[in-house]
C-alpha cells in the first residue's frame, strides 16, 4: 500500500467531502451539526461577501464539473450593484458516462452542499438558488428536499438567516432525462421550462444567465468544497493536490478492478496509486484502456499509469481531467465495441440544434455499428476521422467535442483493432466467395 507522498506528508487518501459518509445517518441535520456542520456558515455570514470571493480565489479551487474553471474568478464576474437579482444554480445533472460522485455525495451529506450553497449565494449576493438534479435519482432528490426543509426549519434558509439580514430560498428541481441539460446554458433553458438546448455564448451566465440575470452555475462537488475552505483557509486547501490544481478530489473508480468505489485523494493522484487502493485489476486480467474523467475525455492506456490526474497532468498527456470518472476496462473488452457504445450514447443525447453534431453523431454511430458487425472496410476508419474532424471545434457546444474523444483516441491507440475488424470482413468474404467457387465446381 502506498505511503504518504515523500516530502509532502500528505496521506494517499484525504477524506474531506467524504469524511462524514461513514457516520450513522450522515445525511441528517443532527449528524451534520454534531460534525461541525454549519460552523462555516456562521463564520461566512460574519465576513464581507468580497472576502469570501477572495478566499475562494486564493484557494485555487477549480470547477469539479469537468472544465476546471477557477471558481473564485467565476464568482468575481458577477456584476455587483447592478440592481438585478442574482442567481445561483447548482449543476447536479451528473450524466457524463462514468461519473458517479455527486449523487452519492448528495445522498450521504446533502447539508454540506446546502451549506456551500448558502455561503456562495451570500458571496455573490443571490437570494434564490436552484439545485438542478437529474430526474432519475429519486432517493437523492428525496434526501435533498428533506435537507432543505430541515435547514429552513433550523433557520439556515429563508428570511434573515441566523440574524444576518441575508435571505435565501432554495428549490430542488428535478430534471427529466437529458444529458445535454448538464451543459450549463442548456441547463438554464431547461430550468426556465424549455427544451434543454445550449445558448450562444457570449453572453455568459455571469451577465445573462437564469431569467437573463447574472448567474453562477457550479457543480455539486465544487460548492460542497466551499464550507471546508471557509473553515480551513486557502493555505490549508493548498496543502493537498498540486499548485495549479489544489485540493482533494473524489475519484470514482468503476469497471474491471477488484474494489470499485469512491476514493477521495489529493489532486494529481495517478491511476497506479488508485489501482493499488482499489485492489488492482479484477482477477488479475490486465488493463487495456481507461477514461480519466468520463467518456468525453480521450482514452488512456497502460502507458498512462503514472500520469498525475489533475487538470494539467491529464491534458499534458493528451486527455482531460473531466469529472475524475475513472472507468477501467481490461483486455477482454473490444475498443471498437466500446467506442461504438459511447457513440450511440452521444447520438441519442445530441440535442439536434447544430448540424455537425446532429448529423455527425448519426453517421459515426452507423459506421461504427457496421464495423462492429464485421462489415467495415479500411476506408471506414478514414470516414470516422473525417467526420470527427468536422465535429471537433465546429459544433455549437462541447457535447460535440466530447463525442469525438473516444473515437479519435480509440483509433490513435488501438487502430489495429479497427483494422482487424476490416481484415476479418475481407477474409470472411474471401472464404465465402471461395466456398461459392467450390460449390460452383461441383
Amino acid at each position: 500500500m502506498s505511503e504518504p507522498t515523500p516530502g509532502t506528508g500528505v496521506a494517499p487518501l484525504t477524506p474531506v467531502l467524504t469524511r462524514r459518509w461513514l457516520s450513522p445517518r450522515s445525511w441528517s441535520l443532527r449528524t451534520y451539526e454534531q460534525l461541525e456542520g454549519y460552523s462555516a456558515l456562521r463564520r461566512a455570514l460574519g465576513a464581507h461577501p468580497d472576502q469570501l470571493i477572495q478566499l475562494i480565489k486564493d484557494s485555487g479551487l477549480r470547477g469539479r464539473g469537468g472544465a476546471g474553471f477557477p471558481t473564485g474568478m467565476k464568482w468575481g464576474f458577477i456584476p455587483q450593484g447592478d440592481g438585478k437579482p442574482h442567481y445561483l444554480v447548482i449543476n447536479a445533472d451528473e450524466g457524463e458516462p462514468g461519473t458517479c460522485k455527486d449523487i452519492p455525495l448528495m445522498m450521504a451529506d446533502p447539508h454540506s452542499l446546502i451549506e456551500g450553497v448558502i455561503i456562495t449565494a451570500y458571496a455573490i449576493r443571490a437570494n434564490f438558488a436552484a439545485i438542478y438534479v437529474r430526474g432519475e435519482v429519486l432517493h437523492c432528490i428525496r434526501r435533498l428536499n428533506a435537507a432543505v426543509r430541515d435547514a429552513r426549519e433550523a433557520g439556515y434558509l429563508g428570511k434573515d438567516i441566523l440574524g444576518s439580514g441575508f435571505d435565501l430560498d432554495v428549490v430542488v428541481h428535478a430534471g427529466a432525462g437529458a444529458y445535454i441539460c448538464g451543459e450549463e446554458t442548456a441547463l438554464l433553458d431547461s430550468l426556465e421550462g424549455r427544451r434543454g438546448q445550449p445558448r450562444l455564448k457570449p453572453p455568459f451566465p455571469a451577465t445573462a444567465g437564469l431569467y437573463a440575470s447574472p448567474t453562477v452555475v457550479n457543480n455539486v462537488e465544487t460548492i460542497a468544497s466551499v464550507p471546508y475552505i471557509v473553515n480551513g483557509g486557502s493555505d490549508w486547501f493548498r496543502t493537498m493536490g498540486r499548485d495549479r490544481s489544489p485540493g482533494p478530489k473524489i475519484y470514482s473508480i468503476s469497471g474491471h478492478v477488484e474494489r470499485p468505489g469512491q476514493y477521495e485523494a489529493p489532486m494529481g493522484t495517478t491511476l497506479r496509486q488508485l489501482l493499488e487502493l482499489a485492489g488492482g485489476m479484477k482477477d488479475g486480467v490486465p488493463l487495456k484502456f481507461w477514461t480519466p474523467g468520463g467518456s468525453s475525455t480521450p482514452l488512456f492506456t497502460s502507458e498512462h499509469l503514472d500520469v498525475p490526474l489533475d487538470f494539467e497532468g491529464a491534458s499534458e498527456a493528451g486527455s482531460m481531467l473531466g469529472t475524475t470518472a475513472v472507468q477501467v476496462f481490461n483486455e477482454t473488452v473490444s475498443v471498437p465495441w466500446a467506442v461504438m457504445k459511447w457513440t450511440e450514447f452521444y447520438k441519442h443525447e445530441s440535442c439536434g440544434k447544430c448540424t455537425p453534431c446532429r448529423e455527425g453523431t448519426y453517421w459515426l454511430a452507423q459506421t461504427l455499428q457496421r464495423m462492429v458487425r464485421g462489415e467495415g472496410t479500411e476506408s471506414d476508419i478514414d470516414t470516422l476521422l473525417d467526420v470527427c474532424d468536422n465535429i471537433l471545434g465546429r459544433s455549437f457546444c462541447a457535447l460535440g467535442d466530447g463525442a469525438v474523444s473516444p473515437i479519435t483516441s480509440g483509433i490513435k491507440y488501438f487502430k489495429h483493432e479497427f483494422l482487424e475488424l476490416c481484415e476479418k470482413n475481407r477474409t470472411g468474404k474471401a472464404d465465402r466467395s471461395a466456398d461459392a467457387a467450390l460449390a460452383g465446381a461441383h
Partner: protein
Amino acid sequence: MTIQHDKPGTPQGPSGPEPTGSPFDELTDERARQLVARYPVARSALLPLLHLVQSVEGHVSQAGIEFCARHLDLSAAEVSAVATFYTMYKRKPCGEHLVSVCTNTLCAALGGDDIYARLRGELGVGHEETAGEPGTPGSVTLEHAECLAACDLGPVLQVNYEYFDNQTPDSASELVSRLRAGERPEPTRGAPLTDFRQAELQLAGFFEGRDSDVEAPSTAPETVRGARIAAEKGWTAPAMPDEAELPPVPEKK
C-alpha cells in the same frame, strides 16, 4: 423580477375550474399552483408540472399537456415541444413499474447488455414497451437507460428510479418476475417500492405521508470504500488550523 402568476381571477390565471371530464382533480390543481409559486418565473414549473401529470396518468397525455398549458398560460404546442424533448416523459401509459436497465458502455461491458436482452426476451417487449395492461398490478414497462451515475455498482438497473446494484441476468430476471407477480422487492439503495406514479409525484416535489422513505439506505460498500480504507489506516486530510484567516476585504478599483 417576480412575476405574479397565481392571483385568482386573473384572465390567464390557472385557477379556473378544470374542464369537465378532466382526469386532474382539485388536489392536483392545488399542487400545480404550489409548484408555480415556487419559482421567480412561472414557466420554470413546467418540468415539475409534467412530472405531476405523470403521477396522475402514468404518462403525458394530451389532457396533461393542456393542464400544464393552462397553469402556465402557454400554448399546448409549446408544452408539447418541451415534453417530447425529455426521455422521462412517456408518451404511452407506463406500467405499474418502470424498469430501466443501464446499457451504457461500462455497465454493458459488465453484463448490462445481457441483462437487457434477457428481460426483453422474458417480458416479450422492447424499449419503452409494457408487459401486462399498463397501470394494472404487475404490469412492467421496460427501457434501456444511459449511465445512471452508479458505475461503481454496475451493472445497475432501477425500478421506478430506485437502485438495484450489482445485477446479473439471473438476479434481474428474478426481480422482474417478482414484480410481475405483484411483489415489491427491496431496492439496494432507495425507498421501498411503490409504483411509477407515486415516484413521479415525489419527483414533482410532493412527499406527504412518506417521511420514513428518507431513512432508506443510500450507502453501498463501494460508496464508502475510500472513506473506510482511510479510517482503517488512520489516513486523514491535513489538520485545519485552529483559526484560519480570511483575506482582507479587497480594495475596490
